[in-house]
C-alpha cells in the first residue's frame, strides 16, 4: 500500500484530457457539419415569442444565497469528518471505540445545533422566511 508512485493519479489527468477531447471533437464535428444561416430573430433569447424585455442579469432572491451558505458550512464539516470516519473501524478494532465515538458524536452534535438553529429561525423554509418581519423600534 505504501509503495506507490504518483502514477496513481494518471487516469484522472487522462480523463480530464479525454473530456476536453470529446468536447472539442463534438464541437468541431458540429462546426463542420451544421448549417450556418445567421439572420432573423433567431438569436434572441426565448421569451414566449415576444421581444425580450431587458437583460436577465438582474438581482436575485437572497434565499438562494442562504441555502448556499448553510450548504457550505455543512460541506466543510463533513469534509473534516471524513478522515475520522476512515479510521473509525480501525480504532474500534484497537479498542479505542468509545474514545473515537465520543469525538465523532461531539462533532456531529455541533452540526445538529447548526441545523436546529436554522430550522428554528426559519432559514430552511423556502417561502415563509420571506414573510417573517423583525420589529425595529
Amino acid at each position: 500500500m505504501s509503495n506507490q508512485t504518483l502514477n496513481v493519479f494518471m487516469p484522472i489527468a487522462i480523463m480530464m484530457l479525454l473530456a476536453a477531447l470529446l468536447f472539442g471533437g463534438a464541437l468541431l464535428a458540429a462546426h463542420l457539419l451544421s448549417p450556418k444561416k445567421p439572420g432573423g430573430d433567431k438569436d434572441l433569447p426565448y421569451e414566449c415569442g415576444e421581444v425580450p424585455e431587458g437583460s436577465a442579469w438582474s438581482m436575485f432572491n437572497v434565499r438562494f444565497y442562504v441555502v448556499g451558505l448553510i450548504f457550505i458550512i455543512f460541506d466543510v464539516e463533513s469534509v473534516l469528518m471524513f478522515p475520522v470516519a476512515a479510521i473509525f473501524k480501525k480504532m474500534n478494532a484497537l479498542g479505542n471505540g468509545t474514545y473515537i465515538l465520543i469525538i465523532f458524536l461531539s462533532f456531529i452534535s455541533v452540526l445538529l445545533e447548526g441545523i436546529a438553529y436554522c430550522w428554528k429561525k426559519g432559514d430552511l423554509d423556502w417561502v415563509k422566511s420571506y414573510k417573517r418581519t423583525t420589529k425595529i423600534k
Partner: protein
Amino acid sequence: MFANILFSVSSLLVISSCILMMWTKNLMHSCVYLLGVLIGVAGLYLTLGADFVAATQIMVYVGGVVILMLFAVMLTGGKDYQSQTQKILNLFPSMGNKYTFMWGVGVAFVFGCTLIYFFRNLFSVIKVIESDDSYTPTIERLGELLVTDHLVAFEISSVLLLGALVGAAIIARPRKERPAFIDDIVDDHHHDEEHH
C-alpha cells in the same frame, strides 16, 4: 516524469488564471478564473502527494465557495467600479485608477522585499529533503493526527463553523427594506383577519 508534467500543466493553469483574473473586467469571469486557479492548486497538491487536501480543495472551493461567489456576484449586480478618467490604465481595466495601481505595486514591492529580507536565511537553514515520485496515502495518517495531536483544533473548528453559520445566517437573512412599513402591512392584515 508524470509528476513533472502534472506540475507544469497545473502551475501554468494557476499562473495564467491568476493573470486573467487580474486582467478581466467582468466579475463573473473573475470567478470562473478563480475556478481555474483552484483546480490548478489542487493539481499542485497532487504532485506533492497530498491526495486528501487536493480532494478537499475541490470539494470545498469548487463545490462551495465558487458557487457562493457566483451567487453573490449575481445578487449584487456584478458591476465593477472603475474611474473613467484614466488613459493608459484603460488597457488594464481591473487595475482601478493610476493611484490605486501605483499603491498596489508599491505596497506589493515593499512587502515582498521585506519578506525576502526577513526570510533570506530560510532557504539555507531548512534542510530540503530530496524526494522521489513515491506517494504514501495520507488519509489514515490524517485521521490519526486529527483525533490525537490536533484534537482540540478539530473540535473547535466545528464551533467556529457553527459561529460562522449563525452569524452569516443572521446577516444574510432576507428582510424587507423598511421594517416599520411592513409592520403596518402585517398589522393591517391581522386587523382584516379579525374582522372576517
